[in-house]
């Protein structure tokens, strides 16, 4: 056995993670240089043993459980999936899509005239129309946020 081979193994053997093989033991018995190095490493290992750290504090487990509960209460899927899985939101989307379709057909001048309420909407595609769309979408998102919050509350109470 070469000194180099033994030195590679030294940290594991000196740390007690591995037993020295017969070949390694006989090399240590005959090679003064390796034997000295091994002894020094064992001493270093023993010294390093003095660095002790405390057990996890009781606070650790309490805090971990609280953080995990919070994590587990979070809905798993992305927002898009959640929207479509919620019956309330699905119904809301149906209504919104319905209104959208209604708006689409209201664009022609004939229907436009026959439905004065919708006539207050600016033409889609115009700057005013875009702003109105943005505004409507903002309300929509705000409502979904609200529903999400309610959703979360239900999850929290369901998984105490």
């Amino acid at each position, binding site marked *: 056995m070469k000194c180099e081979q033994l030195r*590679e193994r030294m940290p594991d053997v000196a740390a007690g993670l*591995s037993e020295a093989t017969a070949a390694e033991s006989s090399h240590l018995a005959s090679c003064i240089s390796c034997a000295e190095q091994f002894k020094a490493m064992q*001493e270093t290992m023993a*010294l390093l043993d*003095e660095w002790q750290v*405390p057990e996890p*504090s009781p606070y650790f487990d309490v805090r971990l459980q609280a953080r995990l509960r919070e994590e587990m209460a979070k809905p798993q899927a992305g927002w898009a999936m959640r929207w479509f899985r919620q019956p309330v939101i699905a119904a809301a989307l149906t209504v919104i899509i319905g209104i959208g379709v209604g708006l689409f057909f209201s664009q022609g001048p004939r229907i436009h005239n026959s439905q004065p309420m919708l006539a207050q909407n600016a033409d889609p595609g115009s700057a005013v129309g875009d702003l109105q769309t943005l505004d409507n979408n903002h309300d929509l998102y705000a409502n979904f946020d609200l529903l999400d919050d309610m959703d979360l509350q239900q999850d929290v109470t369901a998984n105490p």
Partner: protein
Amino acid sequence: MGASSSPAPGVFSPMLTDGSVSDAEIMLRVKTGDQSAFEYLVQKYRRPIVSFMYRMARNAAAAEDLAQEVFLRVYRSRESYEATAKFTTWLYRIATNLAVNHARDTRHERPEVQVSLDEPDEDTGTTLEVPDSSLNAEQAIVRRERMMAIRQKVEALPEQQRLAVIMHKYQQMDYKQISEVLKKSESATKSLLFRAYETLREQLKEFV
């Protein structure tokens, strides 16, 4: 399962009586939504991960916070977990990334080397060692100084050497495991460890 060996409440009992089930398989159960499997992994690894973080972080409060974060990340990553590597390799990769980022973020802060070993830590109420009534005041001071020196010398090692030493010496991980966590070859890990221990031997020789 015999009634004689009733497991502690909250412990994932089927796994404990069946030694053939690997942690990777248990993690796959977590992936399918088995929360008791996750609870089992937390119970099994909380002490090693906390002790790892105590040696990597600058103070006790940060250490426990980081250890909690490890388990939260394990839970969050459950859906993407693949049993390609050993569970502990994956676990220590998460822990290592967190610890290294923490060390980089706080490198300008003064390390908590002046912490008292006898008085409870302000943040956690813990002491840094088990009080040893067999030591007199003078011996206790000497012991504290030695421990501080060891901590400082390990902290002063280059990042990869420090990680390797902490995993090898204090987490009892072998070369192969450490090389997998650090994504290095086994021979590179061996020389990393050898150099680290040589440096520590040189720097700590006054205490031997």
